């Protein structure tokens, strides 16, 4: 285990090699392309979108896909194509920010727990256990209920729920590296705690951490969709894919395009992240268990 983690760390620090390896794997390439497409859509949304996402129009209500409305219109007569494009922004931002929150805090917690051990470790891990023991979707709902419904609060809620996974992953890597000689060597040459953490342990924890982050991203987008279904996700008129999909359910039969397109884009995005994550794990180490 130990030497393996070490190797992965080094391999990942030579990022170009890994990227190349990923690109050579058809799955990795598919994942990359899928994510790149979504990112492009999000970045250039104002250029791509054909209509104002909020513009309602009673006359064009529930129109089927056509040359005017590529993906049809919804129950407010809004252009679904434009909403999907802007929805990419919302979904990606929600994913990135919430995973950023989770990864950042989780990383610090995991590092501290793994490095200091003893009281610090048990206190942190107990806190993580407490968070983890709540079913995640319900904890996220509770947090949003406390904070109030808004985009920021949704991201905070999904972020908090994901902290323990990162903390655990990082702690495990830290502990694995700690046992090795070279930490003892670093100590013996007089390196301070902080320096050791930064210089030696962090690179080694990065591999499983990256994989975890890719997975958490897809999980976050899915969680947001589910929260929207339960009425506490991103609020209208913000065009998040999750809220579009959950609003569309009642029109599923009379206007299937309202369901099909948001669903397609959610699936495409999550699948891309998952495939990339899978390929990444395979590239780093096929035996990596997460």
């Amino acid at each position, binding site marked *: 285990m130990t030497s393996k983690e070490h190797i992965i760390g080094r391999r990942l620090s030579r990022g170009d090699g890994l990227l190349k390896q990923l690109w050579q794997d058809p799955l990795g390439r598919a994942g990359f392309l899928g994510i790149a497409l979504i990112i492009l859509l999000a970045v250039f949304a104002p250029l791509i979108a054909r209509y104002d996402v909020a513009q309602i129009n009673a006359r064009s209500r529930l129109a089927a896909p056509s040359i005017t409305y590529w993906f049809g219109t919804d129950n407010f007569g809004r252009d679904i194509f434009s909403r999907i494009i802007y929805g990419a922004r919302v979904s990606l931002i929600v994913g990135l920010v919430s995973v950023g929150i989770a990864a950042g805090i989780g990383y610090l917690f995991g590092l501290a727990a793994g490095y200091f051990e003893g009281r610090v470790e048990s206190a942190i891990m107990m806190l993580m256990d407490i968070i983890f023991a709540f079913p995640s979707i319900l904890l996220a709902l509770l947090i949003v209920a406390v904070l109030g419904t808004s985009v920021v609060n949704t991201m905070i809620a999904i972020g908090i729920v994901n902290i323990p996974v990162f903390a655990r992953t990082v702690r495990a890597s830290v502990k694995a590296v700690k046992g090795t000689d070279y930490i003892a060597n670093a100590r013996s040459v007089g390196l301070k705690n902080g320096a050791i953490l930064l210089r030696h342990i962090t690179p080694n924890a990065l591999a499983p951490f990256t994989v975890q982050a890719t997975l958490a991203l897809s999980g976050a987008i899915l969680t947001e969709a589910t929260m929207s279904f339960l009425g506490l996700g991103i609020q209208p008129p913000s065009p998040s894919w999750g809220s579009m999909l959950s609003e569309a359910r*009642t029109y599923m039969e009379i206007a299937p395009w309202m369901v099909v397109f948001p669903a397609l884009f959610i699936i495409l995005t999550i699948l891309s992240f998952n495939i990339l994550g899978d390929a990444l794990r395979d590239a780093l180490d096929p035996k990596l268990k997460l």
Partner: protein
Amino acid sequence: MKKTLSVLLALLMMLSLTALAQEPMVLKYGTDAEPIGFDPHTVPALASTRIMLQMYETLVDMDEDMNVIPRLAESWEQPDDLTYIFHLREGVKFHSGREMKAEDVKYSFERILSPDLGALGNSASYAGYIKEIEVVDEYTVKFVLEQINAPFLSALSSTYLAIVDKEAVEKNGGNLLQASGGTGPFTLGEWVPDNSVTVNRFADYWQEGVQFERIEFYVITDPSARMSALRTGEVDLIVGDSAMLTLAENANNVEIYKVRSRNYTTLCLNLNKEEFKDVRVRQAISLALNRQEIIDLAFNGEAEISGFAPASMGHWAVDVLNHPLYQQDIEKAKELMKEAGYENGFTVTCTVGLLDNIRNSGTVIQQQLAAIGITVEVQNKENAQYVDDWKAHNFELMVCQNGAGTDPNRAVAFFFSTTGSANIAEYSNPRVDELCELAAGTSNVDKRREYYHEAINIILDECPNVTFASPYDYIYASTSLKGYAPNATNMVDFRAAYIEK
């Protein structure tokens, strides 16, 4: 061998046929929310009321046109404005088998008025003005009120004032949440939480003709799943949803029941907000709205343009279709905004929540008000938070759905008099207050109507809220369900209903 086999087969077939014939008639009802117990005095939730209405009865009932008609009381008289004497129907039995008598009516109202139950009927809108309840004889009971209260008689038709069995209450530790202690045609059977509630036919029910052996209420929260359950015949009747109307129309085994509701959806303005203190701004908002567009987009077209005294209130209603403030006129609205000093508009938040059509209305209103320079930020609240904000008057604009109730006292005084407990706009007009008092203080129907109409017209002009729609209620049922005639007063009366094989 062959012969015996065929004889056997024939026998089997006959057996199964008789089994079919004897199969009890059951109504399967697809409801949209889990009930929260069945104590009529303490549970207001609609999901519960649907079921409680099968189990409990009130002294009087109300027909489609809001006339008070007999139920447990066969007749009543009013010797003076403060006194009501009810003559009870004889031979009515509680589910326990005991006969319901005047003592029980007295007990029920004492329970409602007791200081520690927290009964919903223990307020001025319902039983609050009762001073004295007297058992005259076994089948006669007399109520004396503290002050004249014209809405009293119609309030008696509310489940909050249902007649309950004292013994059942006592046997169940003081509450009827999971028991049935009424006189209704059905008694409470099995309750499987988050799944189903069964009510069984009460054999000793005082009225003949109840055909269903039991009614099974199934909680199917997803409207699309509910529709699927109806179309596959898994349930016989569902709580409708206007988004499903097209599907219901296209299905050949589905009957659509469309009912004018007594609810209306309205945009409430908080008059404590500086801009809304100016009546011109409020009128401008009313003029800026295209009500038909809101209905088309937020209600799937299934509502009618309405004021806060909707057409379902019969002769109490005021027609708003020709009211000048109900005609969209952006130019005039802009002019009013300019006069009020808000030529460049202002920003305001709008709280929505609870129901899809409330949320959707918010989206449309946001767009429509932009035309006169008002920037609306829609805030969708979680249910409990929405209710809390409503109670605390914590909002600037709020889309609400209100029930106009069974008496104009509810529709007008409750929502718009200075002391009205649902006056969330904090509107205050001395003339309206005066008219409300005058109207509650007389039982002369013509006089009352005159007072209320004047009050309603004042409120319509001053726009403490801007009402736009009264949604229709929909029930979708199997075409084999017969004898069912829902109306705004009671959508769940199955006493005369049956399923035709």
